């Protein structure tokens, strides 16, 4: 299954400004605790890790577990201190991976 994400990345900010990233990935986050209508256990299939790099620094590294809802939503904020690439990465327990990239241009305050 190919993953797809809806991401809101800031593109411009003033130095020192707090900017927000919001993400939504389509993924069932199947817990492995459910059974189907025949009583068979539905195998676990979850995203296990999300990370964010900003201007070559790892700023967020998050473990995801079955208690995170299907189609994981995540919003977080950071201080725009320099121009650079933003890289968002999701990894799943089936080896799947999704990377979204953007560029943040930071102008002097």
């Amino acid at each position, binding site marked *: 299954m190919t993953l797809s994400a809806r991401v809101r990345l800031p593109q411009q900010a003033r130095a020192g400004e707090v900017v927000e990233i919001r993400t939504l990935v389509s993924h069932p986050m199947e817990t492995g605790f459910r059974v189907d209508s025949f009583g068979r256990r539905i195998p676990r299939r979850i995203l296990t890790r999300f990370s964010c790099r900003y201007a070559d620094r790892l*700023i967020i590294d998050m473990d995801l577990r079955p208690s995170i*809802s299907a189609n994981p939503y995540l919003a977080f904020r950071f201080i725009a201190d320099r121009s650079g690439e933003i890289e968002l990465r999701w990894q799943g327990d089936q080896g799947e991976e999704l990377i979204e990239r953007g560029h943040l241009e930071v102008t002097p305050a």
Partner: protein
Amino acid sequence: MTAPLRRRSLLKGLAGSAFVLVVPRALADLDTRLEAALSERFGERRPQQGGVELELSRLVENGNSVAVTVRAASGEPAPAALHLFMPRNPEPWGTSFQVAPPALAEFSTRIRLAGTQDVLAVAEWADGRLGAMAASVMVTLGACADDLYLEF
């Protein structure tokens, strides 16, 4: 009839030695499954009350998707990680959010809740200190209510 006596002396022995509660009083009623999850992540360390804020609805209708925000309390130095625990879910450890500057120690996400429970947010500082805040949430329809939960 030695069995009851033996049990009694065993209980006495346990009460006198191993079972020393190390959690703060306000968190003491959270159950043993949470204890196990905390031990797994933090070893012997246990959180003190405070230092982190947890925003959650008090009443939710659908446990499949519950909006939650966790942030370090204002005035605190920035923690290295924020954790979420759902003691009555099949797997109490929900997520761990490792954070480094210039990111702020704050995130919002959506979680599953298998039923009414006290969700626990834990902030972890680089020096090993832990702070916690619990929030009780009443869930009218738990996650996966349309399916049977397997024994866990």
